[in-house]
């Protein structure tokens, strides 16, 4: 099989032809009603489509093995009636742009059917269902996207399937980028596409990095398909979706009232399609996540800049996207030592999850929500141990936190090996699944390197913790004094005066981060300054906000006076 004819390899040919070639090579389906009629994408080259059809054709041997165990053989070409009805209806709703029905079928029916009929087998093959949906190639791409997602969630994909899924994403995104798709899909689905795309990339990197137990066949396949899930490809797809959708300009214009995006949750109510725009939007979150997986926190946060996370937005319209965004945003800020920012956002999302999680109990994402919830409590614990700004945390979140990590947090304040081990434990539990993006070396004795990226990030994080561990000792003293001489404090801390000066300067340096604009931001919970050899501690009191209160009372009073005036007249 010639792999070089697949994926986005043909993208050097002019757009229109290129798109056609993409589609014909991917699937020989005659046409799609989900593309605007101005771009009728009929396959005019039967030779090309015939050969590529064969190239892309499913090979089920690998995937079959797992399902055969169950006793009932899996026949990919058998389409049970409920599935027939499912695809027929879903296809109709997509053609009619009935977002509500699409959402119902996507969120509910698909999972109900999966639970009932495909608990541990894949769904019927796309070739088998194509006849029920006019062989519509765009629908078939969507179907395959779901097909693989289901496979990844319930079974373990083979290398061949991983590569085929990559090819399917390439075809799908190419259609969105270069075609004029005529669909309106639920945000949930569009988010899941981006989310799954990044997940499968991460999963592929992890899989590839376990070189030790690879068979010769697998290695040959990996070498042959070195473009599959290539990091450049993944990043460039996300970037291209973001750019082609002009989402950054749309968000800019929205601020000036020239465009509506957030107000309509990204949907297009004037007959257009939301697909490219919303995919472009979610791609920014996808880029944040990929960069975090690579350990590039600065660039990750930069990708998210167009989204104002202090406000509600399309990213909050889907719980999974909301959580993913804040989890990675908070984690990146933690690694950049902007603890206050991380604490604020973790606090907000944890409160939100606490208040709303009951509504998601039946959602297929519920388990994932709970897991991320727990991980973010662990990250919040880390942040608060390094920067004890408990007053930033809501009482509800705080009581949850104390319940889960109260005892650990106390021990993390100490300056010993055990506290160190706790930082290690919480970080390892809560960090993203870091990846090594480069291809393995096939030559040497094969070694696993799937832990390398994680170990590096952990090591550097613990390095930071070590640099800060003496600060908690300083804190305990600063808390109880308003003024104290350097000499006295040095005696209490059992260090000499010049060491104490370095510790105090370290405290200042570590509690003052450099913000995105280059300005110094104080994260200090307790502040002090040194006047010659006297330390003066400044208690940071939380002053009550009277301004807003008075404003509200003034408006209220005015309303009451207005009411009274009217009563007098009657």
């Amino acid at each position: 099989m010639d792999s070089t004819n697949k994926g986005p390899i043909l993208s050097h040919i002019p757009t229109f032809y290129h798109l056609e070639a993409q589609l014909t090579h991917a699937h020989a389906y005659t046409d799609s009603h989900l593309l605007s009629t101005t771009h009728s994408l009929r396959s005019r080259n039967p030779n090309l489509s015939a050969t590529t059809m064969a190239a892309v054709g499913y090979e089920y041997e690998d995937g079959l093995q797992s399902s055969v165990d169950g006793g009932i053989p899996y026949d990919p070409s058998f389409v049970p009636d409920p599935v027939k009805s499912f695809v027929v209806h879903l296809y109709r709703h997509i053609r009619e742009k009935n977002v509500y029905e699409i959402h119902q079928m996507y969120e509910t029916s698909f999972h109900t059917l999966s639970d009932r009929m495909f608990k541990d087998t894949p769904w019927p093959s796309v070739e088998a269902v194509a006849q029920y949906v006019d062989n519509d190639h765009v629908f078939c791409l969507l179907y395959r996207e779901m097909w693989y997602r289901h496979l990844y969630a319930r079974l373990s994909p083979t290398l061949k399937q991983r590569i085929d899924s990559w090819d399917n994403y390439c075809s799908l995104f190419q259609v969105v980028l270069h075609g004029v798709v005529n669909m309106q899909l639920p945000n949930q689905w569009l988010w899941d596409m981006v989310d799954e795309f990044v997940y499968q990339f991460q999963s592929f990197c992890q899989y590839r990095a376990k070189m030790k137990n690879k068979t010769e066949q697998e290695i040959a396949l990996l070498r042959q398909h070195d473009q599959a899930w290539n990091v450049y490809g993944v990043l460039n797809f996300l970037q291209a979706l973001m750019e082609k959708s002009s989402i950054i300009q749309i968000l800019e214009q929205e601020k000036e009232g020239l465009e509506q995006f957030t107000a309509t949750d990204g949907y297009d109510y004037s007959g257009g399609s939301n697909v490219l725009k919303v995919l472009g939007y979610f791609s920014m979150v996808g880029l944040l996540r990929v960069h975090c997986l690579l350990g590039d926190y600065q660039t990750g946060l930069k990708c998210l800049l167009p989204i104002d996370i202090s406000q509600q937005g399309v990213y909050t319209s889907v719980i999974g996207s909301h959580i993913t965004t804040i989890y990675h945003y908070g984690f990146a800020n933690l690694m950049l030592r902007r603890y206050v920012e991380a604490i604020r956002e973790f606090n907000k999302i944890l409160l939100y999850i606490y208040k709303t999680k009951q509504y998601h109990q039946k959602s297929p994402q519920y388990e994932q929500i709970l897991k991320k919830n727990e991980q973010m409590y662990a990250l919040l614990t880390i942040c608060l141990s390094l920067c004890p700004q408990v007053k930033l945390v809501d009482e509800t979140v705080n009581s949850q936190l104390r319940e889960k990590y109260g005892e650990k947090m106390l021990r993390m304040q100490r300056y010993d090996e055990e506290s160190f081990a706790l930082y290690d434990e919480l970080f390892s539990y809560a960090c993203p699944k870091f990846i090594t993006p480069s291809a393995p070396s096939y030559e040497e004795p094969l070694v696993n390197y799937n832990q390398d990226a994680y170990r590096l990030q952990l090591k550097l994080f613990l390095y930071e913790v070590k640099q800060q561990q003496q600060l908690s000792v300083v804190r305990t003293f600063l808390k109880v004094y308003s003024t104290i001489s350097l000499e006295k404090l040095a005696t209490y801390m059992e260090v000499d005066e010049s060491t104490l000066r370095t510790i105090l300067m370290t405290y200042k340096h570590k509690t003052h981060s450099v913000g995105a604009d280059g300005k110094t931001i104080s994260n200090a919970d307790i502040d002090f300054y040194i006047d010659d050899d006297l330390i003066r501690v400044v208690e940071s009191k939380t002053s009550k906000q009277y301004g807003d209160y008075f404003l509200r009372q003034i408006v209220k009073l005015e309303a009451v006076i207005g009411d009274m005036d009217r009563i007098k007249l009657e």
Partner: protein
Amino acid sequence: MRLCKGPLIFGPLITGGQSLNPNGTKPHISASCKQNPSVRWSFSKMGREQPSQSQMAYTVEQLVAVNPYNPDILPDLENYVNEQVSLQTYSLDANLCLLRLYQFEPERMSTQIVAHILIKALMAMPAPDFSLCLFLIPERVQMDEQFKTLIVLSHYLETAKFRQFWDEAAKSRHILEVVPGFEQAIQEYAVHVLSLTYQKVPRSVVAEAINMEGLSLDKFVEHHVANSGWIVEKAQGKGQLVSLPRNEFNHPELRRSSADIIPLDHITRIFPVLG
């Protein structure tokens, strides 16, 4: 063979004929620029000299902004690192982009360039740039002797151990002296940390932090007295005291409490009442 991988395949998605950015121009390294490296990154210069030419040179920052995931720009980014060293400029984003490309294709990594990036990152203290770079450099590369030294230096700076820092730096001059402005940059960082911490600081503490004594120290202090508002005072019995200019970190009472600020749109709510 490398070119058959990422760039050709994905290049068109990003830099191809159809414009992916709104103004329709795609910065890419044009042939004309390549022939004329001296004006390669000078946007305005090129613009003035050849205003009618459609292919203009772009700054590396612009290249990075438009082609953040294009391996073809790797040599340009490497040149740019050297340019930052010789012209004493700095771009974290461009350097992170280069480290990212190294991360994707480790076989193309140049340890010398990485060392330059790390030294530049040290000079950017108090910003966390050094860690940001380390996050992207594989552990086995960090085992290299010169990187180990830089990591130790970073540790001393992060923990304000200036005495140890300068001792270690003196031992590693061969690594550091290739980057002009290193000493001054670290001295600036030291002054920054001192200013966060002290209202009044003994002259000897300043001397140790910036690694100066005698005449050069006098000059340094004089310069800051003249330009940064330092005041030198005589302390009883001991040496001199330097009074550092007030800022919100060494005079916390200067900090504007965010609680005191009321946004304008809240005030507009009472406009009808006031009127």
